[in-house]
């Protein structure tokens, strides 16, 4: 009997305790800086090294490059860059290996859409997704940060 009464006491106290829920859709839910949300892509930085597509565990990144339009410069520039968010697991590995931080994480996490086709994001969409970009990217694969790795 005592145990039952103690339990009732706990719930009664909780009746007036501060509530822990947030009014999420009304107030945006702010994630900490390191949060791994939908990627932001910066085409000007991309050197078409293909590392992100290779490291991706689910093969959700497809990219193609084209020769640099400026004949003075060597190398390629990005032509198309798509991420399929049907299978992207936001694991952060693509931003980790990117040597130029051309692909970075943002704090956006809302991916619900009415059609699966809309989940196929192209370079333009990903470039425009440039708010709440993660500041600290810690891309440990990048050669700039110590070659011992």
């Amino acid at each position: 009997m005592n145990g039952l009464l103690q339990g009732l006491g706990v719930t009664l106290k909780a009746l007036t305790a501060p509530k822990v829920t947030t009014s999420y859709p009304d107030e945006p839910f702010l994630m900490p800086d390191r949060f791994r949300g939908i990627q932001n892509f910066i085409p000007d930085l991309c050197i078409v090294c293909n590392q992100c597509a290779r490291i991706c565990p689910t093969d959700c990144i497809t990219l193609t490059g084209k020769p640099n339009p400026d004949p003075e410069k060597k190398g390629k520039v990005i032509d198309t860059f798509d991420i399929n968010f049907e299978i992207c697991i936001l694991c952060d590995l693509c931003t980790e290996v990117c040597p130029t931080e051309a692909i970075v994480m943002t704090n956006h996490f809302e991916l619900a859409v009415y059609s699966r086709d809309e989940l196929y994001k192209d370079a333009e969409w990903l470039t425009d997704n440039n708010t709440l970009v993660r500041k600290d990217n810690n891309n440990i694969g990048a050669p700039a940060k110590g070659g011992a790795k």
Partner: protein
Amino acid sequence: MGAWLNEPLTWGSALILFLWSTVFLLIVLGFVTYAIYYERKVIGWMQLRIGPNRVGPFGLLQTVADIFKLLIKEDTIPRRADRLLFIIAPALAFIPSFTVLAVIPYTEKLYFADLNVGLLYYVALSGITTLAMVLGGWASNNKYALLGGMRSAAQMISYEVPLVISIVGVILLSGSLNLRDIVAAQGGGWFWSWNLFPQIIGFIVFYIAAVSELNRTPFDLPEAESELVAGYHVEYSGFRFAFFMLAEYVYVYAIAALTTVLFLGGWHAPAPFLDFVPGIIWFLLKFAFIVFSLFWIRATFPRVRVDQLMSLGWKVLLPVALLNVFLTALYLELFVK
């Protein structure tokens, strides 16, 4: 109202009675709507949430929206179900729950039927709902529903017995089965003249048995979410499901009102100097407290196991209730006569 009932039925009086019962039905529906809101709010607060707050101001229209959703849903009847019984069961669950309300007095003047076997009428009719649950469970042709229906039958039968016997003490004290007389017998000033204190054993047995009759946590075995998915109403959808829910909440109303009448002195104030407050306010306060306690228990306790439920009913509550009858009779014989 009482005078109408004793006269021969004419078209005029029938119409008036019908209108009155419609008005009362609306009141009961209003109660059910806000009892659900109240329950969800109270349980929400106890679980560190804020409860419904989206539809209407403070979420007051949430239940209305829910019921509306149920009404516009497709009405599905399983192909292998027993169609007739499947359709009858929800109505059979609801009708007795509404008819038992007729005998409950709210104040000295406000009551519907002044039945001299009021208590017996209540207990007898409320038993019919069990039948609806068994029928609903069986007619669904679903194994979970069948298990839920069987549990419901076992539970209702074993708890009806202690429920009735626990009230016998009250009947002995007030010498009447009429609910108005029972309340009147509890008047006379202070709150210790309520049946609650002389009949404390009876009250506890009654309360436990009543929670069980209501199929509410910790005795919600017939619908046991985590075992039987939804128990007897697993196959019901739309407004048929709404009828089962409605019946359940109307019984909450009925049991809370009955507890108030039998044990908490009905419309009597707890102290003589508080008499200036109208009786209906006292009734509603006590009533609301009983309803709150049901929700409070639901927010706290886990579910009882089915075999433990049976042994609690037959091996604990029934002997205690019988003992209570014996003690009450002894007291009346030795001290009152």
